[in-house]
C-alpha cells in the first residue's frame, strides 16, 4: 500500500506555514497514521516527495492504543486519533494531516489544548464532598461511561457551538461533569448544577455531531440527557 502523507507544516522558530508531502509504503494492513508518522520520523533522513530534506514532523502521542487522546488531528478533513486511523481504510492515495483548527498551533500537528483544561477548572469540575455514592449498578455504569472521555478535543472541533475561551465548554466539559452529577445526591447538587447549566446546557444546541466523531464512542446523547435530567430538570 502506497500513501502520500500531505502534512500541514509550521516549523519553529520561523513558524512559516507550508505543506509538505511524504511518501509512505507498507505491506502492513494494520498500519495507522500514527505508525506511519513514527516511521517517517525514525528515518535516518527524512525527505519529502521532491527529495528535499525535511524537519521532524511534530505531533503528540503517548499510548498508541486509543487510551490517551494525545494524537488527535484532522485526517482527510475529519478530527480523529492518528493511532485509531488505519491507512488502509482511507480512500485514495493522498492523506491530508492538519492540526485541530480550534486551538493555537504550537508546531506542525501539535496544538495547545490548554483552553479545555482551563475551562474545566473555571467550571469547578470536582466533588465538593470527597465521598460519592455508588451503590447501584446503573449509576456506576453511567459514571464509567463518563470516565472514558479522553479530552482529545475531537468533539469540540466539530461542534458548531464551541469556541475556546467562551462560556460553553462542549462535551469535553459535559463528560467529567456527568460523572460528578451521577455520583452526587440531589440535595448536594446545587453548585454543580448551576455550573453545568451555564457552561454545558446553556450552550449546547443539540446538533450532536459530537456523537459520531467521538473516538471513544462515548454514548454522548444518553449521557447528556441523564446529566440534563439531573442538573436542569431536577430528576433522579
Amino acid at each position, binding site marked *: 500500500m502506497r500513501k502520500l502523507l500531505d502534512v500541514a507544516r509550521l516549523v519553529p522558530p520561523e513558524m512559516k506555514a507550508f505543506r509538505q508531502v511524504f511518501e509512505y509504503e507498507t505491506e502492513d494492513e494494520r498500519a495507522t497514521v500514527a505508525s506511519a508518522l513514527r516511521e517517517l520520523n525514525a528515518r535516518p533522513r527524512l525527505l519529502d516527495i521532491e527529495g528535499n530534506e525535511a524537519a521532524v514532523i511534530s505531533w503528540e502521542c503517548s499510548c*498508541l492504543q486509543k487510551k490517551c487522546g494525545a494524537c488527535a488531528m484532522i485526517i482527510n478533513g475529519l478530527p480523529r486519533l492518528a493511532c485509531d486511523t488505519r491507512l488502509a481504510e482511507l480512500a485514495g492515495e493522498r492523506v491530508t494531516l492538519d492540526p485541530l483548527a480550534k486551538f493555537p498551533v504550537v508546531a506542525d500537528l501539535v496544538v495547545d489544548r490548554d483552553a479545555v483544561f482551563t475551562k474545566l477548572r473555571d467550571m469547578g*469540575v470536582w466533588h465538593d464532598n470527597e465521598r460519592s455514592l455508588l451503590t447501584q449498578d446503573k449509576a456506576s455504569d453511567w459514571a464509567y461511561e463518563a470516565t472514558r472521555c479522553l479530552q482529545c478535543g475531537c468533539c469540540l472541533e466539530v461542534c458548531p457551538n464551541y469556541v475556546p475561551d467562551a462560556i460553553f465548554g462542549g462535551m469535553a466539559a459535559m463528560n467529567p461533569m456527568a460523572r460528578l452529577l451521577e455520583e452526587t445526591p440531589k440535595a448536594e447538587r446545587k453548585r454543580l448544577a448551576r455550573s453545568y447549566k451555564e457552561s454545558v446546557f446553556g450552550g449546547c444546541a443539540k446538533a450532536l455531531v459530537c456523537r459520531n466523531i467521538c473516538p471513544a464512542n462515548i454514548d454522548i446523547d444518553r449521557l447528556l440527557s441523564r446529566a440534563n435530567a439531573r442538573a436542569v430538570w431536577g430528576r433522579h
Partner: protein
Amino acid sequence: MLSSTSQASTPTPSTPQASNPAMPTPQASNPAMPIIIGAGLAGLSAALSFARAGQACHLVSPQESERAQSVMAEGGINAALDLMGQGDTPAQHFADSWKSAAAITDPNALFGMCEGAPDVVRDLIGLGVPFQVEQGHMIQRPFGGQSKKRTCYVKSSTGKALVGALIDALRRYEAEGLVIRRTSSELVALDVDEKRCVGAWLCSTRTKQIEHLEGPVVLATGGFAGIFGPSTTGSTTNTGDITALVFSQGVKLANLEFIQYHPTTIAIPGKRMLVSEAARGEGGRLFVMRDGAPWYFMEERYPELGNLMPRDVVSREIASVMADPSCENCVFLDMREVDPIVWSRRLGDLRDECIRLIGIDPATEPLPVEPGIHYSMGGIWVDEQHRCSMGGLFAAGECACQYHGANRLGGNSLLGAIYGGKRAAQTVLDELAQGKLPIKPTQPLEVRQAAVAFNPGIFDISRDEVEREQTIQEILATHLGIVRDEKSLLEGIEQLLKLDVGNSVRLRRRVLLAHACMACAITRIESRGAHCRSDYPDTNESLAEQSVVWPGNGAVVFEFRPLPGLRAESRRVLQEENLQVDGLDENDSTQGTEKTWKGVPF
C-alpha cells in the same frame, strides 16, 4: 525524552534566553514548595496529598495527566477489603506479594502498602471511581499469584478511571492555587548542591525556555522499560531518559535486572498491545498446539493456580513451550468459554480493543499471544519513606524501586503508584515540619549551574541518533531477554561499550543505564522472579539482597545491599494469622538505610 512528541529539531531557538540555555530566566520560587516531576498516578497522588495538607506544590509534566501511561493500566488495584467474603486480610496480601517479590524488597515498606491499601481504595471510592458493582455491591476479581479475590476494578480500564478521578479531585486545589500545574515542561537536570538535590531545571517543550525552581523534588516519572523501544507495552513518552538522567547525576538505582515480561501481549504497529491479566482472571486459558491438539500447559503444570500463576512463571512457561520442538511456535489465549455476561459487564472494553486493533474477536477465536516487556520492578533506589540516595530527592511509582522485588503482582502497580505517591509526600511534609527541608544550597546558583552540561536542544533527536537509539534497543532485547546467561550478557556489554554515541548526551546516558541493567543481570548469579539465568537456574538464598548501582568514574559501581528485617509487630500479625512466610529475616532492624555504600566498579 519524547522521541515522537518533541518538536522539530531547532538548533537555533528564538529568544535570547533559549539561545543560551545556560542562562535560565530567574523565576521567583518558594524553596519550600515541592516540585513533582510527572503527572501520572504517582504524581497526582503526591500532589493531592500535599494539597490536602495545605502544602503548595508544582506539578510538572510534558503532556496532560490524561496522556500519562497510568491510563493504560487495565486489570485493577489490589486491597484486602474482603468484599468477596473469603476472609482476606492485609497480612495475606503481604504474604502473596512477598512470595512473588522473592524476598528482595523492603518488607516493612511492603507491609505498610498492604495495610494502607484498603484506605487507598476507600479514598478512591470517595472520589467517585466507578468500581465494578454487581447487585448493588462492589466486587473484586481474582488475579495472578493471589490467594484471594482481591483486585478492585473498573472493567479493564481501571487506570483510566483512577487517573480521571484524581485529576478531578486535584482540579479543586489547582483552582485554589495550591497545585501549580507546569504542563508542557520537562526535567532537564536536577539542581545538585554538595550531593543534595535543591531544585530542578525544567525546559518548556513548546518554547524551549529553561526555567529553574528551588525546592525538594519528587520524581514520579514512570518506569525505564522504554529503553527497550517498541517491544514494550507502555507509552511512547516513557523512554527511560529521566531515570538515565538522574543516574548520570549520581542517584542510585536498584534491581535493574528485574524487568517484567507480561505473558500476554500482541504486536501491533509500532508497539505491543497488552491483553490484560483480567482475561485470565475471568476464565481465559493458555494453550499451544501439540500433535494436532490444544495443550493447556499451564493447567497441566500448575493445577492449583493454572493460568493465574505469577507473571514471571507464565512468561517463562510460554517461552519454554514456544521453544519446544513438539509444539507449534505460537501460544493462544482461549476465551471462547467466557460467559457472555462477563463479556458484556466486565470485559467489553477489552473485546472491543482486540477486534479493533488486531481484528480478532476473542469471544469466538483464540488470541495469539507472547510475552512482552511491561514493567520495571527496579528503578530509583528508595528507602521505606521513599527517600532517594540523594538528600532532598524522593521517588514514587514505577520509576522507584519499591514494593515489587523480583516480580510484581498484577494489581499492585496502581496501588504502589498511589500509595507510594502519598507516602513520598508524607515524608516531604514531615521533613519540612522538622526543618530538614528545604535544603539551603551552599554554593551559588552559577556554580551549580556550571556543573550541569546543558545542551541546546537536549531533547531534540538528531537524525543520526535514531539509528544508534535502535541499536541500544536491539542490544537490550537480545541480551536481556526472558532468559539470560553470562556469555550473552558479556557480549551485550561489549557491544554497548563499543557503541559510538557521538556528542549525544541523551544517548550516552542511555548507554550508561543499559550498562547498569546488564551489570545487575550479570552479577546476580542466580535465578529469582523475573530474572532467569540459564547458567544459574537455582535461587541462591545468600543473594536475597538488592542489586544497587551508581555511576563512578565513567563506570558502573555495583553492590549487593541487604534489606532490613520485618518489624516485630508485623511478624506477630503474620503469626496470629498462621501465615507461613519464607525468607523473612528474623533480624528486626531498619539498618539497610544506614549502611555505608561500598560498591565495586563494574
